[in-house]
């Protein structure tokens, strides 16, 4: 199957454009109400010329899923603008969301068995999506079209026809979930932790499939995960999130090959190596209470950062361009007096 990028809009317009996107939640304690920014001023652009896999990594509670929900239009942004193919998503009517936006952008979720009702045959989801989005003219045409879509994920309709979700393995069910997303011929798939519920032996087959979809079907993928190894393996670009901030963003090989932000360095050195000779020596600090970091003034990583400076405690670091990626850290901010900076040890890991 060939899914091509729609040419309804001009080619030069970016696919997805996110500008200072922010989501504010309120925590209530008695009468006091405290704001916290689940996603804070996130900005990035995904081009339409060349499909790419954009990986978003971070620990649990870093705002990855909130960001995904905003991109999918499932959560409204508190501030900032989200444009898809030059159209502001917030301004779209409900009808336009259905007839246009969800044709373009489709989700894949973490747990395939939670995404499908156990009481419904799994192929019915494919038929319904095809009919609801008017991808097929009449019912007779549907099986042929669905079979075509399934072949892109390495399945055939005969394999899954009439079967219930529990009769499929996790890997197969996740493939069906991806096939369902492909039915509308989207230009972007937002995949939120798509492999974290899968077995080790099935995980790589899904990750390899995203690579294949990008190359063969011209689909861009926002790949959200906490697993750095698969993010490195698939991602063309990567954004590292910490407590709502994008702390480092750029080409995957540069960001993970030579991380600059102390948090990214920390993340990289924490990946368990399968060469047992490289077991960790030094100890690390963990956050005690998540909300404390969220509501911290200054840099959110200051409490755990090995290179923390005075300025980090009460000022928010700017995002600066450094060695081909943006990094949100005072260490790389040229405007800060060099004398105030403590030197950082070279990248670990």
């Amino acid at each position, binding site marked *: 199957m060939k899914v091509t990028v729609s040419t309804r809009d001009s080619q030069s317009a970016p696919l997805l454009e996110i500008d200072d996107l922010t989501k504010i939640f309120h925590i209530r304690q008695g009468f006091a109400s405290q704001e916290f920014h689940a996603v804070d001023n996130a900005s990035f652009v995904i081009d339409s010329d060349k499909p790419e896999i954009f990986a978003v990594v971070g620990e649990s509670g870093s705002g990855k899923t909130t960001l995904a929900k905003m991109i999918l239009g499932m959560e409204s942004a508190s501030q900032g603008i989200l444009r898809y193919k030059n159209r502001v998503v917030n301004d779209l009517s409900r009808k336009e969301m259905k007839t246009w936006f969800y044709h373009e952008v489709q989700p894949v979720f973490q747990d395939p068995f939670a995404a499908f009702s156990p009481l419904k045959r799994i192929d019915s989801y494919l038929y319904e999506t095809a009919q609801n989005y008017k991808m097929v003219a009449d019912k007779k045409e549907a099986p042929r079209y669905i079979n075509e879509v399934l072949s892109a994920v390495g399945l055939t309709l005969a394999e899954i026809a009439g079967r219930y979700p529990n009769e499929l393995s996790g890997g197969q069910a996740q493939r069906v979930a991806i096939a369902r997303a492909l039915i509308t011929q989207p230009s972007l798939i937002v995949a939120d932790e798509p492999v974290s519920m899968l077995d*080790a032996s099935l995980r790589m087959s899904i990750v390899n499939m995203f690579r294949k979809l990008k190359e063969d079907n011209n689909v861009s993928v926002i790949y959200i995960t906490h697993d750095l190894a698969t993010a490195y*393996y698939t991602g063309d670009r990567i954004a590292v999130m910490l407590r709502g901030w994008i702390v480092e963003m750029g080409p995957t090989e540069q960001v993970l090959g030579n991380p600059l932000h102390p948090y990214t360095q920390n993340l990289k050195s924490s*990946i368990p*190596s399968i060469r*047992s000779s490289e077991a960790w020596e030094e100890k690390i600090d963990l956050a005690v209470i998540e909300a404390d970091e969220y509501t911290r003034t200054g840099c959110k990583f200051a409490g755990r950062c090995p290179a923390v400076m005075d300025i980090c405690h009460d000022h928010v670091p700017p995002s600066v361009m450094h060695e081909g990626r943006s990094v949100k850290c005072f260490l790389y901010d040229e405007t800060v007096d060099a004398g105030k900076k403590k030197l950082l040890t070279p990248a670990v890991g």
Partner: protein
Amino acid sequence: MGTIIETNNLRAYYITKAYGVERTVKAVDDITLRIQEGEVYGIAGESGCGKSTLLRILLGAYQPPLTVVGGEVIYHLDGEEMNAADMTEEEQRDLKWRTISYIPQGSMHVLNPVRRIRDTFHDFISAHRDVTKRESFQLTADYLRDLGLPEKVMASYPHQLSGGMRQRVTIALATILWPKLIFADEPTTALDVVVQRGVIQMLKDVQQREGSTLVLITHDIGVHANLADRIGILYAGKLVEEAATTTILESPRHPYTRYLIESLPSLDSREERLSIPGRPPALDRPPSGCRFHERCPLAMDICKTDEPKLIQIEPGHFSACHVVEEEINREGHSVYA
């Protein structure tokens, strides 16, 4: 250092009967293990391969439909040999947490949400020892400080702590009475890498401090690499390979283990990794012969009919595979004699 826990040809099946239809799931099938005192023994395998079932049997915490249909579990504790099947409920309860402890899967959720951490600790300690509240608080504070957990954890409620901190509090809770034998079921699953590293560090600390034995169950080979001394690989209810951690990682012999290790992505290279074809078999109707033969690229005719035996291919390295066995025979026994 002797054996602390052993199983001999252990078979444990889930036997259910519904509307006259009997269904037998062979979750643990003919497993023989010797776990040494003071070692970290890792059990690896995918979900549904019988890891957690094996653990339940080892702990003696099981009830129908899970039934031990053959073999035995023997503890060697305090110079005594005890058959788990013969123990009364009272003896088991006495043994548990004090001598044998268990860190359950998803243990972030085991803490009582309406009690402060220190009260949960008190409940736990006072069930096994005659202590006043003050004594148990003191004991808890000392232990948490030793493990590098911050003081303010004591007075917190579980929901106020981050996931990683809750997990470490649970580990502290499970080990505060210095058990000799600790079982951990997926202690780091669902944690992100930084938190996972903190939890692994702590497990290592706890284990080394008193030279306890740790039986670690996880599907994550990376965690085993950093923690385990020896690894046993389970596939579809069978032990298919067992060796020292470095041997498993550097020269695995069983095709399943080789796939498992080679498919791991790493930050060293972005080269395409192969995934294992097919899917794990259902254990109510396991494949004949070698249970891996349907997914195995090296499968021979004999693999479809005869079950391979676990044989020693070099000192301390066991593998259950006809192909490996044939290779060894061809090379001649003298090599590993």
